């Protein structure tokens, strides 16, 4: 059952990823990208990471994609949809095929090892995923967390300065 579900979601993910790349109108690409984000959120739930699935839906599908769709609307890009919308298809296809072969080769031939942690799925079920993430963020990763907040502040100021007509 889980296998069938996995393959179904994987199929939808890959097809909507393909639509992101191939759709002529940027709005259609954006909606296909939202679909991909939802499928990835389903994958995160299947991997016992419900908090990550929630912020995938809220931050990516909610905030970032709405921002992108607003900019598409503001720039009124629908009018130039008739023109040629790609370039260098052959070389790009060869390059991305090489990337794919490379990645699949390493996934098939390699073996995943590493230092095993102690966060088992039963611990996630009893303790709660959000609590575990919060504990890790505010103890081991406190400095990166603070730096991320500074980065967001810089991004807000930078976006306002860049988008203003005259500074």
């Amino acid at each position, binding site marked *: 059952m889980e296998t069938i579900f996995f393959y179904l979601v994987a199929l939808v993910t890959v097809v909507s990823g393909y639509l992101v790349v191939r759709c002529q109108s940027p709005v259609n690409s954006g909606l296909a990208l939202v679909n991909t984000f939802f499928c990835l959120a389903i994958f995160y739930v299947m991997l016992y990471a419900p908090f990550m699935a929630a912020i995938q839906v809220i931050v990516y599908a909610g905030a970032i994609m709405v921002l992108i769709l607003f900019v598409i609307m503001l720039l009124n890009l629908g009018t130039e949809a008739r023109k040629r919308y790609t370039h260098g298809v052959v070389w790009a296809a060869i390059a991305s095929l090489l990337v794919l072969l490379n990645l699949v080769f390493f996934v098939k031939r390699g073996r*995943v090892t590493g230092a095993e942690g102690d966060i088992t799925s039963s611990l996630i079920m009893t303790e709660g995923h959000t609590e575990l993430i919060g504990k890790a963020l505010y103890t081991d990763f406190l400095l990166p967390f603070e730096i991320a907040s500074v980065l967001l502040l810089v991004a807000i100021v930078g976006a306002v300065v860049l988008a203003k007509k005259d500074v």
Partner: protein
Amino acid sequence: MSVYHYLTVSAILFALGTYGVLTRRNAIVIFMCIELMLNSVNLTFIALSRHLNSLDGQIFVFFVMTVAAAEAAVGLALMIAFFRNRETIDVDQINLLKW
């Protein structure tokens, strides 16, 4: 499902994103393809962190999302500024730094 299945899906998504970045002419669609690649890497991180019973990969995904949000804000502001100057965001027209 083993971790290899998730890694394969992630590899396919990454290759699709590469193809989109290299072929599309609209800068916003290129931006969306970059988001697709970032998301495929996020899937890799979460699959591996689940496989290794560790939480560090998921914390890293958290920071990748933060950087993606910052990138979205600054990148879209750049596109608006460019559109105001040149009336287009076609990357074939944005060629002043090309050799």
